[in-house]
C-alpha cells in the first residue's frame, strides 16, 4: 500500500474540520439523534447485557480458534458451490478481484457498501482495468460522485446537505434542474431510477460481509435500502471480500449478533433487510460465487495480546456517536476508513503508517465507547496501551528524549496527589503562583512548554476557596450552631 493514499495526519486535519461550521452542525445533529435512539433501543431489551457478554464470548472463542474456523468456512463454501480465495494483503485481494472481473469480460460492477473494499481501495484498483465500480448504497453513491471518502461508518454522507446532493445528482444522472427537487424523498427516488437499471444489467456484484458462518458456509449482509439484496441476488457473479475476523462458528451464533448489531448501529429493532446465502443455489441468485478472505494486518493484530480484542469489532459505529472527539472533528480527520474510537485503535494496527501513532491520542479517555460497545471492546485501555507503545517507540528511535518535562510533571503530580496534605499544600502554592496568568477566572498563555496546553484549553483558575476548605468551614459552623 503506497503512502500517497494516506491523507493528512490527525493533528493537521482536525483543526480544519473544527473550522467547518456546516460539518460541525451536521455531526452534532446526527450523533446526538442516533445516541438517543440507541439508548432507547438497547434499554428496552431486558437481556442486553447478557447479549453483549455472549457476543464478546463468541468472538473471543472464534478469534482464539480462527484458523480452525477459516478452514471450516472454506470447506463449507466450497461444498456449497463457491470458490474461496486467500489474500495476505490489499494488493493480493485486489489482484484476485481484478482477475475474476476480467474473466467475466464486464466493465461495470455494482457494489454494496463495504468498509473492507474501501480499506483495500478496490474501486481504484478496478479502475486501472477500465472497470467502473458503482457504489449502490445511497450515501456511498453520494460520496463517490463527490470524489470524497466517507466520513462516518454508518452515514458516510453526513457532511453533505440536500442542496449539495441535488447538485451532484443533476450532473451525474444528467437531469434538468426542473426534474429534481432537493426533497430527500425525491433525491432517493432519482437514485432508485438510476440504480435500478444498473442492477438489472450488472453481470458482476462485489460485496463485503457482516458475518460468515463456518459450519454452513452462509454469508450475511445487513442493510437498509435493498441495494444489498439487489447485488447479492440479481447479477450472475457475486464476489465477496471479507476480513478474516468476520467468521462465526455456527448459524445459531447469529441470533446474538443480529440482535446486537441493528440496535447498536442504526438504533433499530431490526434493520430492514438481511440477506443470507450459502454458496450457489441453482436457479436462484448468482450462479458463480467467490469469497475472498482478507488478512491485511489482521493476523498480526491477533498475535498482539493487547490489540487482539479490536478484532471483535462488528462495525456498528456506536462508539463514534458517543465520542466527544468524533462529534467535533468528524470522520475525515482520522484519515482512515475506520474513524472514531475504534478507528483510533484499529487503523494503527491494520495500516500501521507512521502518522497513525498519533490516532490513539485523539481521545479524552472518557470511556463512553466502552460503555456502548456491543462486544465490550475495552477501547480506552487499548488506547492507553497504544500511547505507551508510541512513547516507547519514539524514545527508542530518539525522536523523543528519554525523559521529558511531561514525565517530570507527571512524577510531580504523583507526589502531590499521594496524600491529602500534599495535595492541599500544592493547591495553596498553585493559588499563589497562578496569579500572573489568570484572565477572567481562566488560566491563559501559560509559560514555556505549557503554552501548547493552555492555548487549546480553558482551564479554570484555582478558586480562592477550595471545596475542601468550604466543607471544613461548614462543619465547623454547624458545630458552632449546635
Amino acid at each position: 500500500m503506497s503512502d500517497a493514499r494516506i491523507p493528512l495526519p490527525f493533528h493537521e486535519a482536525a483543526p480544519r474540520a473544527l473550522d467547518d461550521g456546516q460539518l460541525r452542525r451536521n455531526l452534532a445533529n446526527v450523533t446526538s439523534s442516533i445516541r438517543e435512539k440507541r439508548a432507547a433501543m438497547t434499554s428496552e431489551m431486558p437481556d442486553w447485557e447478557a447479549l453483549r457478554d455472549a457476543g464478546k464470548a463468541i468472538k473471543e472463542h472464534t478469534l482464539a480458534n480462527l484458523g480452525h474456523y477459516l478452514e471450516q468456512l472454506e470447506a463449507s463454501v466450497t461444498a456449497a458451490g463457491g470458490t474461496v480465495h486467500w489474500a495476505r494483503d490489499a494488493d493480493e485481494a485486489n489482484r484476485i478481484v481484478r482477475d475474476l472481473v476480467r474473466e467475466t469480460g464486464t466493465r461495470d460492477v455494482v457494489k454494496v457498501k463495504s468498509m473492507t473494499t474501501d480499506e483495500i481501495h478496490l474501486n481504484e484498483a478496478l479502475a486501472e482495468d477500465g472497470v467502473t465500480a458503482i457504489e449502490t448504497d445511497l450515501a456511498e453513491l453520494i460520496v463517490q460522485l463527490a470524489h470524497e471518502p466517507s466520513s462516518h461508518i454508518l452515514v458516510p454522507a453526513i457532511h453533505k446537505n440536500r442542496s449539495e446532493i441535488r447538485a451532484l445528482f443533476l450532473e451525474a444522472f444528467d437531469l434538468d434542474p426542473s426534474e429534481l427537487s432537493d426533497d430527500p424523498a425525491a433525491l432517493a427516488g432519482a437514485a432508485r431510477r438510476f440504480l435500478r437499471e444498473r442492477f438489472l444489467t450488472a453481470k458482476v456484484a462485489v460485496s463485503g460481509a457482516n458475518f460468515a458462518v463456518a459450519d454452513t458456509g452462509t454469508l450475511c449482509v445487513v442493510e437498509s435500502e435493498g441495494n444489498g439484496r439487489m447485488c447479492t441476488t440479481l447479477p450472475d457473479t457475486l464476489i465477496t471480500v471479507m476480513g478474516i475476523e468476520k467468521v462465526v462458528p455456527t448459524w445459531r451464533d447469529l441470533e446474538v449478533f443480529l440482535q446486537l448489531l441493528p440496535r447498536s448501529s442504526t438504533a433499530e429493532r431490526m434493520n430492514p433487510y438481511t440477506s443470507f446465502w450459502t454458496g450457489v443455489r441453482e436457479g436462484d441468485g448468482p450462479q458463480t460465487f467467490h469469497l475472498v478472505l482478507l488478512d491485511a494486518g489482521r493476523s498480526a493484530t491477533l498475535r498482539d495480546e493487547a490489540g487482539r480484542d479490536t478484532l471483535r469489532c462488528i462495525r456498528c459505529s456506536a462508539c463514534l456517536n458517543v465520542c466527544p472527539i468524533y462529534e467535533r472533528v468528524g470522520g475525515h480527520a482520522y484519515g482512515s476508513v475506520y474513524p472514531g474510537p475504534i478507528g483510533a485503535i484499529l487503523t494503527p494496527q491494520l495500516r500501521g503508517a507512521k502518522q497513525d501513532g498519533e490516532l490513539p491520542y485523539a481521545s479524552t479517555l472518557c470511556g463512553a465507547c466502552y460503555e456502548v460497545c456491543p462486544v465490550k471492546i475495552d477501547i480506552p485501555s487499548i488506547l492507553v496501551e497504544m500511547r505507551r507503545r508510541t512513547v516507547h517507540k519514539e524514545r527508542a528511535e530518539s525522536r523523543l528524549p528519554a525523559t521529558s518535562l511531561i514525565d517530570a510533571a507527571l512524577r510531580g503530580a504523583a507526589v502531590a496527589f499521594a496524600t491529602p496534605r500534599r495535595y492541599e499544600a500544592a493547591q495553596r502554592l498553585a493559588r499563589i503562583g497562578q496569579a500572573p496568568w489568570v484572565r477572567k477566572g481562566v488560566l491563559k498563555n501559560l509559560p514555556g512548554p505549557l503554552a501548547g496546553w493552555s492555548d487549546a484549553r480553558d482551564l479554570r483558575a484555582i478558586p480562592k476557596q477550595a471545596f475542601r476548605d468550604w466543607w471544613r468551614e461548614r462543619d465547623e459552623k454547624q458545630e458552632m450552631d449546635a
Partner: protein
Amino acid sequence: MSGKDARRAMLDAIQAATEGVRDDDPAAAHAALTRPYRQVGERDAAARLDLFEERLVDYGVDVSRLHASDVASAIDEELARRRASKVVVPLGFPEAYGVGVGARERLADDASPRELDAADATVSTCAVAIAETGTIALDAGAGQGRRAASLVPDVHLCIVHASQVVAVVPEATARLEPAVKAGAPITWISGPSATSDIELVRVAGVHGPRTLLVLLVTDA
C-alpha cells in the same frame, strides 16, 4: 500456485498468533459457551401477535388480521387498490389464496429480472416471523419464491400465519436452521426498505418494494 502460498502463509500466521489460546477441541469449547440471553419470549400467543402487528405498523407496513377463508378476497382487494395488473405468484403459493389474484396476468417466480421489473406486485408466504423485531423471514420454501421475486416488484404482499409468529430472534433462528443447513437462501424483511442517508431524514422505499403489505392469518 501463489493462491496456495497465500493460504498457507495466512493459516501459519494465524496459528502462530493463537499459540497458547486456541482450544484442542473448538467444537466442544464452542458448545460450552454460555448463552444467558432469552431463548424464548414470555408473551402468550395473543400478546405476541399484538406486538408483531405493533412493530409492523411502526415500520410503516399495512397489516390486516383475517381468517384463512378471507385471504383470497383480501388479496383481490389489495391488488385492486394498488392497481396491480401483473402479479408474481411463486411456485407452491396456496391455491386457496391464489384465487384472489383472479384474472390478473400471472408471472412465475423464475421470470427474468427484467420481466419482474415490469410486474406490479408479488404475493408470497413466509417461513417464520419475529414479534419483537417485526421481522418476516423467507427461506425460499413453497409459496415464497426465488429471492428476486420478492425484491424487484414494487409491492410485496406477504401472508403470515399466526403459528409462524415467534416472540424473539433465537426462536426464529432455531426454526430456520434446517433450511440454512440445506443451503437455502434466507431473507429477513423488517418493514419496507429505507434510508436516512440525506440529512438523517427517513425516506421509506429505496430499492426494495416500496410497499410491504402483511395479511396476518389468525386461524392458521
